[in-house]
């Protein structure tokens, strides 16, 4: 099977498409000959120029969903297009909250399975092979679909480099949403956006993360101060997110953000496999942990076996002295 048409589900960022969208478009160009994008929301059509620049010839606009969660209407609109004969060979879905919802719904509507947690794609012998990291990234599994297209892949952030192709703006085509019945009844009644100063966690060149080894929510201030001194973003392990020390948007790992900064500082984090998959791709890794057998040291370029309550305050002082 030669890959002709690839659809990319668009994830929107604060202004315009999110980085993962551009990553997926760049990869879609490599996989197939025609790349088309599917977006929703009031600002969907305004992304046509950027999406085109990264290779999308058409932008299907599902429109403003009027507060409905996107999964059911977007999947229904995509499935209707497939049923009417406009079917892609491959659908690339970003591993975001809404992306996963759309993929699950689309999977049932088209009766096609989904491959998730994809970190790489390649065409080999006419098949699209997806790459998945298992066991904390120690092993790589390659998988493929054996049934008919469309083939749906849910791809993790930072799996591909985003490269503009210099294309013209995508032609915008409005899609109508079929009746989604009871499935479409979930409504967003209010949005809460956490305030953030400094760079975004998944875009920062420096990430300073804290874990349970900090000993208490009040000590997270050290992480925030270090992040600020290094013009970076503060991150966290799931343990301290679950404990309520920091909001979920700080979480790095399998269920959180994937980060690939120039340097990742892990402080009081053991290095569980689910944490490692979210940060192992960092260029450099520095770890501070009092347990010399902590798994985080197996991926660290520099490991300090020590107490965060001694090392971090000294580091803050040293950086302040330099500033």
């Amino acid at each position, binding site marked *: 099977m030669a890959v002709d048409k690839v659809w990319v589900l668009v994830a929107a960022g604060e202004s315009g498409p999110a980085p993962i969208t551009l990553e997926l478009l760049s990869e879609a160009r490599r996989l197939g000959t025609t790349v088309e994008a599917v977006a929703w929301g009031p600002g969907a059509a305004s992304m046509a120029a950027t999406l085109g620049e990264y290779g999308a010839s058409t932008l299907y606009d599902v429109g403003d969903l009027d507060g409905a969660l996107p*999964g*059911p209407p977007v*999947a229904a609109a995509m499935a209707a297009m497939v049923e009417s004969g406009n079917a892609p060979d491959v659908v690339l879905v970003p591993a975001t*909250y809404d992306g*996963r*919802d759309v*993929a*699950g*719904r689309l*999977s*049932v509507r088209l009766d*096609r*399975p*989904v491959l*998730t*947690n994809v970190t790489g794609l390649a065409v080999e012998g006419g098949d699209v*092979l997806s790459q998945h*990291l298992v*066991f904390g990234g*120690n*092993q*790589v599994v*390659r*998988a493929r679909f*054996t049934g008919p297209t469309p083939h749906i892949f*849910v791809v993790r952030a930072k799996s591909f480099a985003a490269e503009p192709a210099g294309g013209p703006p995508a032609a915008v085509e409005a899609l109508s949403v079929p009746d989604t019945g*009871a*499935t*479409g009844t*979930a*409504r967003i009644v*209010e*949005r*809460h*956006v956490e305030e*953030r100063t400094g760079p975004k966690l998944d875009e920062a*060149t420096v990430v300073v993360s804290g874990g349970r080894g900090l000993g208490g929510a009040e000590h997270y201030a050290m992480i925030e101060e270090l992040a600020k001194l*290094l013009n970076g973003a503060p991150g966290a392990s799931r343990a301290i997110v679950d*404990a309520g020390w920091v909001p*979920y*948007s700080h979480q790095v790992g*399998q*269920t959180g953000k994937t980060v690939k900064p120039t*340097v990742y500082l892990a402080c009081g984090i053991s290095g569980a496999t689910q944490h490692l998959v979210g940060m192992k791709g960092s260029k450099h890794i*520095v770890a501070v942990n009092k347990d010399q057998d902590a798994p985080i040291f*197996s991926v*660290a*370029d*520099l*490991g*300090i*076996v*020590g*107490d965060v309550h*001694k*090392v*971090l305050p*000294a*580091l803050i002082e040293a950086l302040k002295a*330099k500033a």
Partner: protein
Amino acid sequence: MNVVVCVKQIPDPAVPGSLDPTTHNLVRTGKLIMDDSDSYGVEMALQLASGEGDEVTLVSMAPNGEVSGLRTALAMGASKAILVSDDALRGSDALSTAKVLSAAVRRADPDLVIAATESTDGYTGTMPVQLAELLGLPSVTFAKAVSVDGSTVKVQRQTEAGYDEVEVPLPAVVTVTAGVVEPRYPSFKGIMAAKSKPVDVLGIADLGLEPSQVGASGARQEVVDVADAEARSAGEIVVDEGDGADRIVAFLEQIKVI
């Protein structure tokens, strides 16, 4: 209120996992346990269905008639369980799992279905939404808080930037994150009581499904190969002798971050 909780029974994650070299399926030997991720859903269900006549039913699909993980959830306080176990289910993908579980969930006719956002061993994170679509129900994923007000479920749903308040009429499917509630430990009394709680064990024929729809024969995806990932080259691990901070500063200078 009648709540169904999906409970996945998995190999103990503390024991290092491996893939079968020929089938590439996850090797499942020894006793299975309740996925820790599902303990939050069980607790959430018990808190939401705590009134007179309320009931929490567990639904699970697992090989070899495995019930030990279900017993743990029954010991926490769930009333009963439906287990789907059938040799034909080996090698099922998430969509097949959803088809099987949807047939089982229908039997319980719930007002609310709760699952985890992702399992510890498979972490595809798509099964619950597929289940919702198969059942014709709305879904709210990534709940960090759930409450029921009359016939409406109110959910705080995690987003990239914070959270959304989402409302959905019952019946619905909700997936919960770890930390949504603090799971209780089964009491001794609970453990004893769990032994006699009903577990309905069903095969796929009982659910009206054909072997060709499920399991490895129904799966339309396969593992091609498994290889070791490129290892990171070993770094320098030093014990802090009061110079830890200086070493980090020197390292950051060397990589030109400062």
